[in-house]
């Protein structure tokens, strides 16, 4: 039996080789269809996995989405609505499962501000601030700007217009008998409450208010999916019972809604494109497969069992799928890296799992599209040779 099987197997592979080599044009057509399908599959799968993750990072363009505020106290008495900055040691490590968590600490008070250059005097909200946990370069630069050593402060655009301030002007802030000064480092107009505030370093504001070590607000920028953000808030609240941790609903809810929409959009598009790519490849393959009538006829004429003939063609299809898939999927992953770079400015990280999945899918499509060949089993060799069918 084994002796019979071995030459059989050798023959099987030889026929397979011949089938593949018989018509170069057809081989290329099939490989091209399968390879293109595999490339698109791999590129889209990789991009899909990456884009959803990237989207949550994109949302950080909206800035902080979580606040820590004092729990009790009269909101109208500024000095009472503060809490100790030691709560911040609980915010660290500044990380959750989705990436870096950035925080800005604020202490607010109202002070009389005089500009030495324009000699104007106004009561302005002072928001002493300091960044925590920033490792982003731009963030670091902003904090450097406000460092207590070089005594620079950010000034809101509305303040600058009303007091005729320019970058480099010196400001004197006084609260009762305490006086502090700083130099205008940056003038910003961004449509928020900061437009009518002066933002020096936290230490300056704490000295000015006479409240060392106290803060009135922490703004946190938490990355991640809506669920990850909720978990982070719950976890933080448990660790800081003395203050209130709450999401900025405007952003957390808006983000959640948009995340779900875009996620759904991507999944749906990718799903449908993949399905129809498979269908297209299948149709192209089926078209090629049908013209195999001659070969089937010949094989049956010289005594090939239907099962063996079908097995032969399925093996051919699988081999083609493997070849097209291996090359196409690799190309697709390379493509998605480039695409990721074009869209998000950062190359998409190739997911290794995508490669075998794409190759597997391609083989599956190739084998399934060879399925119409089963019908060929019913072919009568004689009528094929007579040219009737």
């Amino acid at each position, binding site marked *: 039996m084994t002796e019979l099987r071995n030459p059989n197997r050798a023959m099987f592979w030889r026929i397979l080789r011949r089938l593949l080599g018989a018509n170069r044009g057809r081989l290329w057509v099939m490989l091209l269809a399968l390879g293109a399908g595999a490339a698109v599959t791999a590129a889209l799968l990789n991009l899909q996995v990456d884009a959803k993750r990237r989207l949550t990072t994109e949302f950080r363009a909206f800035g902080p989405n979580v606040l820590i505020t004092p729990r009790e106290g009269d909101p109208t008495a500024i000095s009472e609505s503060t809490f100790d900055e030691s709560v911040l040691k609980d915010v660290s490590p500044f990380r959750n499962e989705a990436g870096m968590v950035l925080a800005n600490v604020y202490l607010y008070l109202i002070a009389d501000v005089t500009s030495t250059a324009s000699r104007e005097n106004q009561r302005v909200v002072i928001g002493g601030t300091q960044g925590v946990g920033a490792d982003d370069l731009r963030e670091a630069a902003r904090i450097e700007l406000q460092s207590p050593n070089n005594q620079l402060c950010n000034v809101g655009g509305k303040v600058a217009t009303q007091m005729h301030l320019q970058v480099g002007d010196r400001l004197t802030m006084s609260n009762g008998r305490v006086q502090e000064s700083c130099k205008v480092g940056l003038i910003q107009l961004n449509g928020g409450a900061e437009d009518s505030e002066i933002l020096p370093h936290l230490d300056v504001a704490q000295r000015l208010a006479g409240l060392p070590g106290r803060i009135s607000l922490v703004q946190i920028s938490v990355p991640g999916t809506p669920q990850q953000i909720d978990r982070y808030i719950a976890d933080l609240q448990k660790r800081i019972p003395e203050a209130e941790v709450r999401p900025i609903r405007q952003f957390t809810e808006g983000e959640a809604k948009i995340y779900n929409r875009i996620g759904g959009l991507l999944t749906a598009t990718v799903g449908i494109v993949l399905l129809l790519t498979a269908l*297209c490849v299948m149709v192209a393959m089926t078209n090629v497969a049908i013209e195999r009538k001659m070969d089937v006829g010949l094989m049956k004429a010289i005594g090939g069992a239907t099962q063996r003939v079908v097995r032969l063609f399925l093996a051919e299809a699988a081999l083609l799928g493997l070849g097209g898939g291996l090359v196409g999927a690799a190309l697709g992953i390379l493509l998605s890296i480039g695409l990721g770079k074009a869209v998000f400015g950062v190359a998409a990280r190739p997911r290794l799992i995508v490669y075998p999945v794409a190759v597997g899918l391609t083989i599956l499509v190739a084998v399934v599209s060879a399925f119409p060949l089963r019908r060929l089993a019913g072919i009568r060799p004689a009528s094929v040779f007579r040219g009737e069918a």
Partner: protein
Amino acid sequence: MFLRLVADSFGRRPRHKLLTGAALALGMGVATAALSVALDVGDRLAMEFRSLGANLVATSRADSLPLEIGGVDYRPVNAGAYLPESDLPKLKTIFWHNNIIGFAPILEIRGEALLFSDKDGEFQPAGWIENVPLIGTWAEHGFSLPEGGEFHTGVVKTNPWWRIDGQWFSDGAKECVVGAAFAQKHGIKVGDSISLARGEVTKTPAPLKVTGVLNSGGPEDESIVVPLRYAQSLADRPGQYRKLYISALTKPEDDFARRDPKTMKPDEFERWSCSPYVSSIAYSVQQVLPGTDVRVIRRVAEGEGQILTHVQTLLWLVTLAAMLAAALAVGASSAASVIERRVEISLMKALGAGSGTVGFLLAAEQLLLAVVGGGVGYALGIVLARLLGERIFGAAPEPTLLVFFVVIGLAAIVTLLGSALPLRRASRMDPAPILRGE
């Protein structure tokens, strides 16, 4: 004879033609669906982003600096400048009036509140609360538009994340809404009554009915929200407001949009003001509301612009990939259909047809297939795009003629290109060996 040959080819091998046509239709279906969704997605997503609320804020240019900490303004009421409410309907007359989906004027004051508790159907005074932040605004204010119809706007549109237990007050009624934290602290429920007053009080003012409890997640939770008209009468500022929030549909800003309009040449300025950039909408709002300073809320507008641009690029790339895959599959199947007709081609050549005639015949066949397949594919794709659009955004994209022409054109080009290569090879071949079957 030419037409007969084409008709014969279709009639003789309906199955082959059907398969090639099906590949074409499917491929073009994907292309249509992806293209329709990609064309539509910018508008739909821009609408979604409005769930982040207002992206423009207008204040009086003459206003003094607000001394605002944690949403509480520490300025005395008589300080600062106010804006006239009567100008507001003009917002719907600007060039971009269709892009303005909502606005809400705000007047904040501080006052005293007298709570009434409900005892056996009779309201009993339950105590004064001093220094309560009061926010006067529109919940859902309607006014008629110059071109007919009515426009409803208010905080419901500009602050969609505000949740209300119960319902909003109706405009001008003696009703109010209480912030969740305030309500909890003082045990106020929907249906209670509150009297509000400011300054010297000689007699108890007519009470307002609490119609809802507001949960905003912000400083508004500590305050009482009243109809704008009522806040104006309390502040003795009839027909005036202090701050205006505007929510507008915008196009993501590019480098051109960020330029200062004052430095633009006339034609550049026209192009700028004819694009719905957030800055150009701010500019035209400022034109109709004299004395205001309209600022872009950068945090909302820039984040939105950035994400919108990225998502749109991503979708275009996916569309492109889909079209590429469809094109390759269609090209491959039309190439296959030419390859298998080598015998036929050889026969025609043996009978004296030139390469040009044969090529023309085959091209005509393929084009016919492309138009029919592309047409069916377009119909298929429109249905698919509808399904997608309704599933994701709750609204189907409008079918456009542009997509139709692009799809038909693509189908024609791809089938021709796909068959051109094997055709060239076939035309160079010697008919004799092929006819002999070698």
